[in-house]
């Protein structure tokens, strides 16, 4: 984090790292579209169950219930949404570090550590939900090898989960820096970049939640 | 010096263009796409001609302009001061945007028309032939006549034939250059291509190729198409409907190993019910069996030459000379050997395998190994002895005793056939006319 933007000549006056992260996010759009397309293309093409929204009775008479668990996923979706709120608060806190805080409310709102931690925790909870979801699916007879649905579902949501994991690690790194030397307005940019990534991961989930979970 | 150089640069093009005129005459080019013999072929060819003409015009104009400019404006010793520093010319640039657009319009319109014409539903009553791709051979079925055969198709001139394709394994592609374009043969999908061979055609034979890379023997996945007169076709059909000529037994309908996936873009005519003539024929096959020989394409005919494979026999394959096989014994050996696990011979109850070509009328075929070798005892014997040495990666096991199996990388010891047994099998199979 050696190079605060203000020290450089740049054509646009913007910091290169922020341009790069936006380019990266643009590229991620194609990545997730490929995954989502595949899931939708294979929707309803599995030759054996279990299936996302319908029950299935195997030739051997085994009974499999519809896989997707909307209540749980709604909860995790909500958690991820909230994490985005925490993230913007963390960024705001870093930006306004030097603004004197009079009331406790301001002090709470102004604590970058609190919000960074909250975001990371929310992310972890989301991952926890996903871990629970995956294991329960496996118990209900759907693994990544079972059928086209299993393969495309686990890969898609797994990729998203991997992104969340990376995000959590990133946030914890920032948190560590915050504890070591404290993040101030000069560091707003690196927090902003992490935030952009985090929100994007959230945005992707918004799409996944509707396209994969809700639409039958 | 530069001038001469420029001329040299045109030399290879010159040569090649001279060769194009050569290419026009078909007889020396048995697989040419330039003289088609079906409606589809001609539809494609007319677009090709248009493309060739427009393309040549564009080519000549562009290269001429390039050469002219390069010569006319080459730097001369007295060019000390800079040339006029023009930055562009709106009018010119608009012109050379529009001209190509117009040219493309002349290509686009017939293109789209032909697409919709040639991909329409085949006429009802078209002869449906089911094509099933295998690594590395072709299975052909005539549901209308209950015929299953491999690597060779007979089609009557003047009747629309509708190929309905799918694959057992990887993607293959079905191509008869002189009759039609390609269509990919894809597992879990059903594809179609249909055309009508010209009535003007005499009995003739065409090479067919697999044109989608499909593994080790992609190069050796070929087939033959015989366009014959309707009466010849009828006779061939009657022949194919008989059970194996040798040791004839009541004809069971050939096993159909796989169903076609109900593809969304199913544009085929529904397969007509087996016509009464056919069923009658199979009912009365005992009598038919005694009837005169059925039509098969005369292999001594000149047209046939280029359809004859010339693949050399791989080094190191030997067969004891002077053995004479006994067909009766051959049938026994065959029926107790590995063969029956994969091959079907209708009329031989032991032989119901469906993973390899149907051999019911093997004797009537012109080639073996998916068009790789001529169907003569000499080649056949070696093939049975060590198919894997004859054709890369082939799934048929090496059967000859003490032969080296290039895939298992070891000699065949137990259960290998000796040359006499092989000779007998050869006699049996070739007797299956």
């Amino acid at each position, binding site marked *: 984090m050696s190079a605060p933007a203000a020290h450089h000549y740049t054509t646009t006056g913007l910091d290169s790292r922020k341009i790069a992260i936006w380019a990266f996010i643009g590229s991620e759009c194609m990545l997730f579209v490929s995954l989502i397309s595949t899931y939708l293309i294979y929707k309803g093409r599995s030759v054996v169950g279990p299936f996302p929204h319908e029950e299935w009775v195997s030739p051997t008479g085994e009974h499999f219930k519809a896989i997707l668990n909307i209540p749980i996923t709604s909860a995790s979706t909500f958690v991820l949404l909230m994490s985005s709120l925490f993230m913007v608060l963390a960024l705001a806190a870093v930006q306004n570090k030097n603004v004197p805080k009079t009331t406790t409310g301001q002090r709470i709102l102004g604590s970058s550590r609190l919000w960074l931690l909250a975001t990371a925790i929310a992310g972890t909870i989301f991952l926890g939900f996903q871990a629970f979801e995956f294991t329960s699916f496996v118990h209900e007879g759907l693994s990544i090898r079972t059928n086209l649905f299993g393969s495309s579902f686990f890969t898609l949501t797994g990729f998203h989960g991997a992104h969340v994991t990376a995000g959590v690690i990133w946030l914890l790194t920032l948190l560590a820096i915050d504890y070591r030397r404290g993040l101030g307005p000069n560091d707003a940019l690196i927090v902003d970049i992490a*935030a952009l990534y985090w929100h994007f991961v959230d945005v992707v989930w918004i799409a996944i939640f509707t396209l994969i979970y809700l639409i039958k | 010096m530069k001038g001469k150089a420029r001329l040299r640069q045109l030399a290879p093009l010159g040569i090649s263009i001279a060769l194009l005129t050569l290419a026009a005459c078909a007889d020396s080019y048995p697989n040419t796409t330039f003289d088609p013999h079906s409606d589809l072929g001609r539809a494609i060819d007319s677009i090709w001609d248009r493309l060739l003409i427009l393309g040549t015009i564009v080519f000549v104009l562009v290269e001429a302009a390039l050469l002219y400019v390069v010569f006319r404006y080459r730097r001369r010793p007295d060019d000390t001061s800079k040339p006029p520093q023009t930055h562009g010319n709106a009018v010119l640039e608009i012109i050379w945007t529009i001209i190509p657009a117009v040219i493309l319009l002349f290509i686009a319109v017939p293109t789209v028309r032909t697409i919709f014409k040639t991909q329409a539903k085949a006429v009802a009553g078209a002869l449906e032939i089911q094509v099933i791709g295998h690594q590395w051979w072709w299975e052909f079925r005539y549901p209308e006549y209950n015929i299953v055969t491999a690597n060779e198709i007979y089609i009557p001139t003047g009747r629309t034939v509708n190929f309905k394709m799918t694959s057992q394994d990887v993607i293959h592609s079905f191509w008869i250059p002189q009759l039609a374009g390609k269509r990919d043969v894809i597992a879990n999908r059903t594809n179609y291509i249909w055309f009508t061979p010209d009535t003007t055609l005499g009995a003739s034979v065409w090479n067919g190729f697999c044109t989608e890379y499909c593994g080790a023997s992609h190069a050796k996945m070929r087939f033959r198409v015989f366009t014959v007169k309707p009466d010849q076709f009828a006779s061939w059909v009657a022949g194919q409907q008989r059970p194996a000529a040798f040791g004839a037994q009541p004809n069971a309908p050939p096993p159909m190993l796989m169903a076609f996936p109900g593809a969304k873009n199913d544009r085929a005519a529904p397969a007509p019910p087996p016509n009464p003539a056919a069923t009658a024929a199979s009912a009365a096959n005992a009598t038919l069996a005694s009837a005169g020989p059925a039509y098969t394409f005369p292999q001594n005919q000149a047209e046939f030459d280029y359809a004859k494979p010339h693949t050399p026999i791989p080094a190191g394959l030997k067969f004891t000379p002077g053995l004479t096989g006994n067909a009766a014994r051959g049938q026994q050996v065959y029926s107790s050997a590995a063969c029956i696990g994969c091959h079907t011979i209708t009329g031989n109850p032991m032989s119901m395998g469906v993973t390899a070509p149907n051999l019911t009328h093997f004797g009537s075929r012109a080639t073996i190994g998916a068009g790789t070798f001529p169907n003569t005892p000499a080649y056949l014997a070696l093939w049975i002895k060590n198919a894997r040495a004859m054709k890369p990666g082939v799934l048929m096991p090496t059967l000859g005793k003490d032969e080296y199996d290039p895939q298992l990388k070891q000699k065949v010891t137990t259960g290998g056939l000796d040359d006499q047994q092989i000779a007998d099998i050869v006699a049996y199979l070739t007797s299956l006319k």
Partner: protein
Amino acid sequence: MADHHSHSEAHGADAHVSGEVQHHPGWSTYWKVALILTLITVAEVWAYYIPSFVASRAFVPSLLIMSALKFFIVVAFYMHLKYDHKLFRALFTGPLFIAASTLIALLFLFGHLVAKFGPG
């Protein structure tokens, strides 16, 4: 990332810092946005549990609209694209457009939309 190359002209820089400044909305906007997102999500899930609605033709479109709404709200406010340099808008919407068209094209090619909108 620390991996940002610097030019030594300290002076040339200050002139351009301005581009970096963003007039972010404050807490008041943030919690309202969060509320809206939550409400839309609730609406989506609710819709999912009304069989008659699920059966109706309106179901899929309305869900798509709702999630698109959420999508753009987050991008506009939390990713402050609404307030940020227009360059970033270009860097995001361009690829998003290509990605979206690719998705739609693929669904057509695999015959998914054909049943609903496409030619038979």
